[in-house]
């Protein structure tokens, strides 16, 4: 129970403390402390030093361990840069948002951790709805019209989506009616053990509703718009948090249901659905990469693309599944880098429109180069991790050559569209030399975080640690994939 306590109690305690202690520095230290402990704890769990006990509500299988690690990692870096982000000179309106910032962050950590470790679908549902609730005010950080709209859309769309997911869970219980499962109908492990007795019709219905519902959070097209609006209008650390961890949290819900379906004959159906959803996400990213005029939205669409790719990988199975799991890790890291640096650009140029950003590489060398490197990482250039995970996904897709051809086609044009935007921001000479805003930058904590994360990405890619690989293959094993 110690682990559970470490993972959840500290954030819980912090919520109260932060609420009463108004000094932001203390708030920050407390939150960072909780984040560090969380990171340490999940690392220990990940590497097998701690073996937490499990019950009907809590479970620590490989999937949980991996996603917990992803969450901790993203959360830690986001917290680390939060203080400097909050201390930036800005307009008065935001002062109000800052009061709640750390409290919501702690609540988010608590809810997200619970969602990840939950073995009970009801608990998962409550926890993930709570994550939405604490992210929504964070989206509204800037308190302007766009943020308001984004917050409304995200809140409403995700609430409806989560309601759909709930319907899905109810279908799951329905599928177990009249079987040995009666009475313990929302416990995932029980389902997995008795998958063969489940009613296939309701199983399929459950998957459809869960997948569609949670897609609003994962960002699978066509349920992606709320996500796009939210990540592009929220402050960068929050956007990084959402892209890096919240999408993963929703994904784990889908994966749980899929895991139940794996031994049954309906698994094939789930795979088809996931591949359709993934392909449609790629298509959407493909279309919008040529339409976006806002660089944060562009990064959000890139998230849609990568989550789509992950879902395709999961749906394809085999080595692609392994690739997809690694992709979750790599994508989360890369997205943090991109969003943090996009935030720096936003602060300097006071605009999210690509057209009003020029020559970032010269004006802000640190941010510019890190952003460029992050861009190379996200388009799967070696030696960054995404290169390897995409390669695995492609290799798995070789079994379906036409699909692979389609994926590569879409990815190529996504790359073209994205790089056009990025390069324009980074190199384009300013139209009017005289009216340039005064920009000077020093090496600060966001750069430090980005640098470490990129190095981590290279390290994880090139020298794939055996622990990580073992973990991923264990997950694959849980999903019935033997390599």
């Amino acid at each position, binding site marked *: 129970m110690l682990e559970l306590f470490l993972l959840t109690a500290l954030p819980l305690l912090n919520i109260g403390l932060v609420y009463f202690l108004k000094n932001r520095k203390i708030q920050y230290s407390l939150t960072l402390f909780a984040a560090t402990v969380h990171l340490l704890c999940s690392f220990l769990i990940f590497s097998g030093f701690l073996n937490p006990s499990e019950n009907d509500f809590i479970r620590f299988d490989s999937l949980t361990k991996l996603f917990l690690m992803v969450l901790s990692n993203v959360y830690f870096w986001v917290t680390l840069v939060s203080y400097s982000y909050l201390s930036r000179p800005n307009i008065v309106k935001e002062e109000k948002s800052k009061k709640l910032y750390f409290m919501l962050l702690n609540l988010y950590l608590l809810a997200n951790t619970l969602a990840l470790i939950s073995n009970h679908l009801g608990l998962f549902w409550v926890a993930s709805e709570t994550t939405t609730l604490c992210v929504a005010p964070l989206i509204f950080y800037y308190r302007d019209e766009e943020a308001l709209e984004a917050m409304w859309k995200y809140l*409403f769309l995700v609430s409806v989506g989560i309601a759909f997911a709930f319907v899905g869970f109810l279908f799951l219980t329905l599928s177990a009616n009249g079987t040995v499962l009666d009475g313990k109908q929302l416990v995932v492990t029980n389902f997995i053990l008795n998958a063969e007795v489940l009613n296939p019709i309701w199983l*399929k219905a459950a998957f459809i509703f869960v997948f569609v519902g949670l897609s609003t959070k994962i960002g699978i097209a066509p349920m992606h718009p709320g996500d796009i609006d939210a990540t592009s209008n929220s402050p960068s650390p929050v956007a990084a948090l959402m892209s890096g961890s919240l999408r993963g949290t929703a994904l784990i819900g889908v994966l749980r249901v899929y895991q139940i379906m794996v031994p049954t004959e309906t698994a094939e159906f789930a795979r*088809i659905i996931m591949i359709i959803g993934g392909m449609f996400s790629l298509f959407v990213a493909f279309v919008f990469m040529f339409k976006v005029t806002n660089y944060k939205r562009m990064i959000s669409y890139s998230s849609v693309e990568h989550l789509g790719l992950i879902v395709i990988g999961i749906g394809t199975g085999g080595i692609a599944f392994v690739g997809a799991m690694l992709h979750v890790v790599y994508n989360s890291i890369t997205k943090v880098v991109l969003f943090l640096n996009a935030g720096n650009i936003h602060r300097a140029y006071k605009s999210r429109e690509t057209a009003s950003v020029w020559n970032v590489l010269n004006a802000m060398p640190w941010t510019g180069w890190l952003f460029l490197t992050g861009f190379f990482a996200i*388009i799967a250039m*070696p030696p960054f991790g995404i290169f390897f995970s995409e390669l695995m996904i492609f290799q798995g897709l070789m079994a379906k050559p036409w699909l692979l051809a389609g994926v590569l086609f879409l990815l*190529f044009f996504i790359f073209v569209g994205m790089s056009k935007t990025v390069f324009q921001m980074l*190199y384009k000479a300013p139209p009017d030399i005289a009216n340039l805003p005064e920009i000077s930058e020093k090496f600060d904590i966001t750069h430090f975080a980005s640098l470490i994360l990129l190095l981590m990405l290279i390290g994880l890619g090139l020298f794939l640690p055996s622990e990580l690989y073992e973990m991923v293959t264990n997950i694959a094993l849980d999903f019935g994939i033997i390599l």
Partner: protein
Amino acid sequence: MDHLFILGCSLILIGAVFAVLVKPIQLALRIYVGVMSAGLLFNLAFALVNLVHLPATPLLFPAFPVLSSFFRLDGLALFFLLIITSAAIPAILSTHSYLNQYLHKAAAVRAFLVSFSLVLLSTQLLVLANHAIVFLIFWELMTLMAYLGLLLEKEKPEIQKGSFIYFATTHFATFCLYIFFFLLHSQSGSWLFSDFQLTQTSGMVFYVAFFFGFVGFAIKAGFMPFHFWLPHAHSIAPTVLSAFLSAVIIKTGIYGIFRMLEFCSPLPLWIGAGILAISLFSAIFGVWYALAQHDIKKLLAYHSIENIGIIGIGIGLGCLGMTYSIQPLIWLGLGGALFHTFNHAIFKSLLFLGSGVIYSNLHTRNIELMGGIVKSAPWFVGLFLIGSVAISGLPPLNGFMSEFLIYRGFFESASIFGGYFPFFMLLMTVGLAFVGGLALACFTKINSIMFLGNERSPHLKFTVTGLDYLSLGLLAFVCLLFGIYPQIILGIISSVVAIFQSGESAQTFSTFAQWNFITGIFAAIILLISTLIIWKVSRTNQRKSAAWGCGYAGQTSRMQYTASSYADDINGIAVSVLHLKSKVKIPETIFPVTSRFHSHAGDFSEDGLVKPIYSWIIGKITSVDFLSRTDIRFYILFMLLTVLFYGGTAILWTYL
């Protein structure tokens, strides 16, 4: 032996570190050049030593068995390592003087130096890779680092455009290679090159794999019609990088094709025939496009396409040899191709580095604005001239020797094959001769317009630094050496080609020509020329006078023949094929008024193929707007429809 290589690579990395850390940029540059050239020399020595000891193929990192299985030191890899290092050393030497003009932008220069050294490193490791994934990693790294290298003057719009085209196209090539390697992997179950096998018995897989592999490598190599990125990238790159791009990076595509041939034996006939056709096409139109250019670097880039075509002709010939297992043809074709690859790396480096010297003095790439350089820098012009003669394939320089091998291959094949073969082979020979004629026209054009006559735009002085002379001189020396005495390298090539020769009777180069005889003739020619020149100079009755102008004495430098007019006769024949556009304003009144002539050479592949397809796709994409709704009610509707759609899928899936 491999500590030489490790030492070399570490020195290259150390060079990059110095470039970043040393504070005064001038000093950083100097240290960089020193350290890098030392590192490259080590690697050159490593390649040479191992090549001499062929066919023994030692391990690269014997201490680390896992790592050493990723790399392979066979003849082909080592030969390309030789090419890379011998082209890289002069490029590095020239870096010093070329970058002097950019020293005020210290950060950009440092970034360039780092990416350049990483390009060098990844290219070298690329050719040694024996593992498909490792190969792909270095392949992409090379692309990426070369891309970063292009950004030295990133504020210029043309550089943004050109570098983007380069990046996007090569990324596309990488995607093709993904498919290629995956198919190979699925066939052999291994990622190691040494295990790859692709036979025609595998049916469809063979064709698909070959298609994607060839397209992927051909894009990199610049075969027509995949070449369109090449003139853009080469013309905007910093010249030292252009030299390396043209001399080495596009050769990695050739390297890939060679490897592919190794995997796919036995080769069906259509591969050889197809490669021959596409190569001849590239060669002819590459040089013809080159003739129409005014931009010296663009022109040289098109010449790269021509030379890639010539190399491809050699490869195609070798493929025919492999198909029918005819040893001499394999030797002459593949050997000629390898030799030409090496030679092209040498003389194209020479020409590009030369154009870099011109650019740093005159700050223009337009040859119509040059002229008269020979008076201020005769030695420099002499060196450039050696490169020009070599690339035109004229004796007694190395360009001739490799083309000679390929010609010999054609003649050889004619005597072996019967039926229709001689006819087509003769057509290829004539095509090659035609290419030679065009190349001659082109290089007389640029040498004349750039160097000779009077200055078109006055420049104060033309300085060529000692390091420039050193690097150009080294390259010119190699051109001359391998032209007169190719036996040195032909021995190596024959042991490299042995990989492709099935059967025991690996022939050596001496079978195909009396090399010593040729050496003798060429030496005699040079001797005769030198004697005559000395004799002529010693004659005292010389004098200077104004040039003959039909009695008109008021000639100005603007009245000289221009590059456009020089090439007009030849290009006039193929205006439509070449996408040549010209705007003329002819004076129509009796008294002359302002008139002008402007010509521009397009590119059929870019203007006729890539752009239309690209803009069609983009047009279709941007016209998709059912997703661009802002109303939240649509999002909910989408959700509902998606559920219904998936439900329908479920029903279909269950009952069909």
